[in-house]
């Protein structure tokens, strides 16, 4: 991992898991927004939203990680990332603090994680209060609709 020794992570929770993304990659955090559903889109695409004139693709991180669906009326937050392919927002359950982690606490993804979730993680940071899973943002937003 090429990150500097101390790294700031923006943390959030998805289906009981704590996840983190480097603060530098996060453009902004928003509460629930009106979405436009996209028929024929991959399942993890929740829809499109209007982000001040820009159109962002919204991905549901629960579906992306193949975790259980959230309740229909559960609150959601958008973690908005700027990417080369356009603005992408990740739908999460709740947003936590920005924490500082060190490379020493970094380790490979826990063995207990399998399948999609494991493939989309870079690894985990061990903290006193538990593990923060480091999301590989490139892979997480790398959804492709079948041509």
């Amino acid at each position, binding site marked *: 991992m090429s990150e500097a020794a101390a790294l700031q992570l923006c943390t959030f929770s998805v289906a009981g898991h704590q996840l983190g993304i480097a603060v530098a990659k996060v453009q902004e955090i928003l509460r629930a927004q*009106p979405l*436009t559903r*996209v028929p*024929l*889109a991959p399942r993890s695409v929740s829809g499109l939203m209007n982000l001040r004139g*820009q159109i962002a*693709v919204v991905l549901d991180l629960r579906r992306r990680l193949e975790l259980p669906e959230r309740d229909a009326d559960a609150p959601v937050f958008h973690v908005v990332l700027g990417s080369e392919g356009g603005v992408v927002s990740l739908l999460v359950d709740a947003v936590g603090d920005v924490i500082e982690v060190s490379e020493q606490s970094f380790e490979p993804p826990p063995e207990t994680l399998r399948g999609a979730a494991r493939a989309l993680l870079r690894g985990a940071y061990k903290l006193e209060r538990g593990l923060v899973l480091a999301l590989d943002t490139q892979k997480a937003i790398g*959804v492709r*609709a079948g*041509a």
Partner: protein
Amino acid sequence: MIELDEIVRDFLTEAKEGLDQLDRDLVALEARPADRELLAQIFRAVHTIKGTCGFLDFRKLERLTHAGENLLARLRDGELALTAELTSGLLAMVDAIRAMLVAIEATGSDGDADFAPLVAELARLLEGRPRAAAPALASSAPAPAAEPAAARNESIRVSVALIDRLMNQVGELVLARNEILQCARSDTDPARAATTQRLNLITSELQEGVMQMRMQPIDAVLSKFPRLVRDVAKDLGKRVRLEMDGRHTELDKTLIEAIRDPLTHLLRNAIDHGIERPAERSARGKPEEGRIGLRARHESGRVIIEVSDDGGGIQVAQIRARAIAQGLLPAADAELLSERQLLELVFLPGLSTAETVTKVSGRGVGMDVVKTNVEKLCGEIEIQSQPGRGTTVRIRIPLTLAIVPALVVAAGGLRFAIPQANLVEVVRAAGDRSHARVEDLGGAPVFRLRGQLLPLVQLSRVLESEPEREPRERPLDMVVLECDGRRFGLGVDAVIDSQEIVVKPLGAQLKGIAAYSGATILGDGQVALILDVPGLAQQARALSEQRPRGDAGSAAPAQEVRRDRQPLLLVRQPDDSRLLIPLDSVARLERLRESAVEQVGASGAVQHRGRILPLVRIGELLPERRALPRRPAADADPQDGALSVVVVESDGLRVGLVIGEILDVVEQSLELELAPTRAGVRGSLIVAGRITELLDLAWVLEQSRVPPQPGLAA
């Protein structure tokens, strides 16, 4: 000031810039007469003006610049030394050119002023003769002081980046305007309503202005092609004449650049694959020199560019063989493809029909790249070819990509934008009448619009955003769309509004969905998807092989190809054989109860719309074919006991043909591949890989002429 051609205006702008430079250069040359580079630069500047004015038919200007050019050539070649007298002569020429440019700008012609004395003076200087008792040079050219204001430069160069930025901002402004218009609908304050209206108007005008700024004549690309064609033809030992048309057709600057490569490819292809060698051409009775047409025109908000050649055409059988040999297509599938679908195989990556790989083309990259590039521009490409007579490739692209007029429709609880460019018309549901027009064609709904049968698809069903629902349960609005020259109907829940939308690209996650070309933000701030009509059609497999008849305007070979093709109804007969019926003669498709058939004559008749409709069972009417085994005919549908009847009409005669089911509507050239083998058929065609007979309708109608039946008419 009169209206000038775009090309003349460009010439004036460039020439004026050139002249200012020329003035400075000539004076500098006087100081440094040995500066070859400077001299070469001056020569080029005069040469350019001469060349263009020759092309634009400004004869006087051409004569003058020609004299000056001769003089400069001698100077450049070191045969004459620059004297003050020579410099004065050349400067006088510059002044005279300037005066003529002013005249051109004001009147469109190079003026009445006679510069013969100046031309003579330049000729005298050329020969180095001493001056006769010559009139003063100045008297022939108007004094530079008299230069009218119009001579001042009226155009400026602006960076494309700046225009692009403006364009983006105008895009955002249009969105904001749309939102305000939405709010204003419920506004009761008349003053504010008026301001909103003004804002609306100004925004529209501003948008139009910025768009105009980005428009360029397509000539910017086309002008390079004569040279390209000449060089490629020479390389390949072919003789080719390039005919260009519509060079002034304007389109967005980004598009101009983007079509350069596809067009270059198509031209190379036409020369390499299309046009035959001179000997081969004369053997086929064609002129040795091949013709390639490159034509651009505006048509309903789009630009159409055609590249046509009068070469050997594309051998469909060869394409099929190649595609199978190269493993691009399973042999079994290839058998089922229509001629048109086979032609479209040339767009498959890796397929090349050139016998040998040449320097120019034949490496199997080409048409697929062209197609991809055109589609990136929201364009469409189609190919038509007739063996021995030539090939035409037609590209349709929008004028601009940034802001497009669109129709907003609702389906399955969502709103979608459909670009107007693909829109033919909107058919509003009018109670039960629209239902009546929706008919069943072999299980697939079609509807009849002014005599034309169009396939119908439900948008919500295509997008799977709504569970299956019977299409005829409730009235629906219909949008008639066209792509690749074929039409189909799209059923939507409601047609909402037409508006200008700003096209935004879809994120990488959604790029692969062919049904959408982008997204936009509607007046209420919500996002709506923009439907990609060709992609949608593909998704829906809605396109049968039919096209609108009588498409006007296209040029030579294409038109001939088109004229020969005719839409035909492909039906399965009760005995399981197939038959083609010319679609022009088909008046209606009916399902009739067998119990309604009254026994008159051989096959019976029914009362249909107040008239007697004789029924014809073709299998019984036609003389038996020996070779083909026949299944016993079961006319009526086993499920509901109804007869499928195609009502045909010709010369005032009407009969109902009892058929098994309608399979498809195909478009075929009526060049019969097999001669008729029996009475009642005009011959056979190969349709979807099967030999299919074409019904001789006149004969059938003649045979079925029912003698008057007083009993039934009563």
